[in-house]
């Protein structure tokens, strides 16, 4: 009598444990077996141009077609399926997939399907075998006596919990098994108690988990309404095609090429020395606004525009000198006036030349006197030396401007350069690129390198080609300049390289249609947008270049 409850409990545990081990371990390259019971039956096929995934769901076959190399969805294809019931045309379902009714999916076993794809001027025939699992197996006869306790929903829930990887469930099962066994021994004729205790044990095992949402699949035939992306124990990621579409996963077909070696340098944005200007007063004086006021910060000015006036300040010594000069001039003017008057009275006896000399002398003295008066009042005009935008302004009306201090600084925002510091001596090729802190890219052109040391480095100047965008002088950036040396490797966009859980640089390789495998690589800088994979990767692989960060977050 003791054997029976033991067997029953053992069988129950085995039945429940089976699906948990089913999704462990994979061969690289081999088609992945069903990940878990929550994934709908599926098959994939690929050619040199296309990759497709077929998903069996609710008696219909959903087909996802993408380009093989880039993983771009192909939504305008004509697709025909040669299946068990002849040739059927698949129709687009509006969400980027194709769908066709497939009543034969109810039959368990292997279905050989040939898919004819006509898209983008290409015709291709792909073959795939879709394996439909047998319907959920009936409970073994020995479990029949208490089968009513462990039917349908509970069994499905158990499977769901186990396939979710909740290891606490195993402990609960083991504990419940032991408790049930003991109880059955005590009660002798009530082996059903074992199952009851098992059920109770599970209910109390993990309340947080029990409350978690998620459809419980009632057997493998009726799968969850959608498939969930998940990570395998080996680090590979299963991502169903609909999820790939949402994450916009795109791949690159790797090719090995020779690339110029590049040098990474810290740099900052500077104004183009020929297109920036400083406005300074040449004499000490009081700042006065021009008619219309001082130009405001950020105002656009043209070369020659009046920006400010400086009323020269005269110190007391200067003022005394000027007063003396004025008195002297006044005195001389009076003397010359008197002499001219006398000469005119005796015009008949003096030479005419004498009178003319005196007249010239008088007019010269009067001009000097007038200039002396005006020099005290005339302000200095400060004009813009170049066209551009007022980048900085220190002008306040009435302020005393020292000669040499910049009142305004004018920068042409369309003419900015980059100055980088090179700690090594390199021979730079013409083109370079810059990466801003926010990831924006700049195209640069090498203009020249200094020879004088500055902070143990040599300044290297680059001009910004094309649209610089919203830049300002002083912004920091990383400059990647090409040197004249070369090396071989695989160029990848920077977005392709992500950090693995252990901090290593990894890329995701698109293995099968819905499987992405992390690959460790070593990279070197190439330019602002790309890195060079120098080891860990061969040509002819499909590497995720868009959405890699999102893939990396799947647990």
């Amino acid at each position: 009598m003791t054997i029976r409850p033991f067997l029953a409990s053992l069988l129950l545990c085995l039945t429940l444990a089976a699906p948990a081990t089913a999704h462990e371990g994979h061969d690289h390259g081999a088609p992945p077996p069903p990940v878990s019971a929550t994934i709908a039956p599926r098959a994939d096929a690929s050619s040199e141009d296309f990759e497709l995934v077929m998903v069996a769901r609710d008696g219909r076959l959903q087909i996802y077609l993408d380009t093989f190399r880039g993983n771009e969805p192909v939504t305008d294809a004509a697709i025909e399926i040669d299946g068990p019931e002849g040739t059927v045309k698949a129709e687009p379902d509006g969400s980027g997939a194709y769908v066709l009714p497939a009543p034969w999916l109810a039959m368990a076993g292997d279905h050989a399907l040939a898919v004819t794809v006509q898209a983008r001027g290409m015709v291709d025939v792909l073959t795939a075998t879709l394996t439909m699992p047998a319907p959920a197996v009936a409970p073994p006869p020995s479990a029949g006596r208490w089968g009513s306790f462990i039917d349908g929903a509970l069994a499905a829930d158990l499977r769901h919990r186990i396939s979710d990887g909740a290891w606490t469930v195993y402990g609960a099962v083991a504990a419940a098994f032991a408790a049930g066994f003991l109880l059955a021994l005590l009660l002798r004729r009530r082996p059903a108690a074992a199952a009851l205790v098992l059920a109770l044990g599970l209910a109390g095992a993990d309340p947080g988990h029990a409350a978690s949402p998620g459809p419980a699949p009632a057997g493998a035939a009726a799968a969850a309404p959608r498939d969930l992306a998940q990570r395998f124990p080996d680090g590979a990621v299963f991502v169903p095609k609909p999820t790939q579409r949402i994450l916009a996963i795109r791949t690159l077909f790797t090719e090995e090429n020779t690339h110029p070696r590049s040098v990474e340098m810290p740099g900052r944005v500077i104004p183009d020395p020929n297109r920036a200007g400083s406005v300074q007063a040449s004499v000490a004086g009081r700042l006065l606004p021009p008619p219309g006021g001082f130009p405001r910060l950020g105002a656009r000015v043209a070369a020659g525009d009046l920006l400010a006036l400086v009323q020269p300040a005269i110190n007391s010594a200067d003022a005394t000198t000027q007063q003396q000069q004025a008195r002297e001039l006044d005195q001389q003017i009076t003397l010359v006036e008197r002499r001219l008057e006398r000469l005119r009275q005796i015009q008949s006896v003096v030479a005419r030349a004498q009178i003319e000399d005196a007249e010239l002398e008088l007019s010269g003295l009067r001009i000097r006197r007038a200039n002396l008066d005006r020099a005290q009042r005339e302000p200095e005009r400060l004009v813009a030396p170049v066209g551009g935008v007022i980048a900085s302004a220190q002008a306040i009306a009435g302020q005393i401007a020292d000669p040499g201090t910049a009142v305004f600084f004018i920068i042409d925002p369309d003419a900015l350069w980059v100055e980088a510091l090179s700690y090594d001596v390199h021979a730079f090729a013409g083109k370079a690129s810059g990466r801003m802190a926010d990831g924006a890219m700049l195209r640069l052109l090498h203009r020249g390198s200094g020879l004088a040391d500055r902070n143990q480095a040599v300044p290297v100047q680059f001009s910004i080609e094309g649209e610089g965008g919203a830049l300002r002088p002083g912004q920091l950036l990383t400059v990647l300049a090409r040197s004249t040396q070369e090396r071989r490797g695989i160029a990848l966009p920077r977005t392709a390289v992500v950090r693995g859980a252990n901090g290593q640089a990894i890329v995701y390789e698109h293995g099968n249609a819905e499987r992405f495998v992390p690959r460790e690589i070593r990279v070197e800088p190439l330019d602002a947008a790309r890195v060079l994979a120098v080891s860990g990767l061969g040509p002819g692989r499909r590497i995720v270049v868009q959405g890699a960060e999102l893939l990396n977050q799947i647990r």
Partner: protein
Amino acid sequence: MTRWTAAALALMLTAGIALAHEARQGPNGGKVVDAGTQYHAELVAKGTPEVVVHMSDANDKPIPADGFRATAILVVGGQTVRFPLQPAGGSRLVGTSPVAVPAGVRGAVQITSPQGATVQARF
């Protein structure tokens, strides 16, 4: 048992190089590819409408094609053509295409064995 193991191993190997799709040259002048786990199929087209598929087992030993049925789906000149293939003695399955089929044609052949299982060969 060893035959099954060999077939399974062959499948695993071909799965690894699935992207490369390396087809072998067959004794009849066509490409030999795997058809399911048990068979190899060699498709021979010579620029005429007649298309011949030679059946062999996993060890490339010809097997009688009696009782087999097959459908060919081939890409000829940017169009797909479908036609049935019938046993024609020996290991041969012969069909007639509506258009002339050049050598090295791409496409697939669905082969139904006498036991009723359907396998596919992609060329």
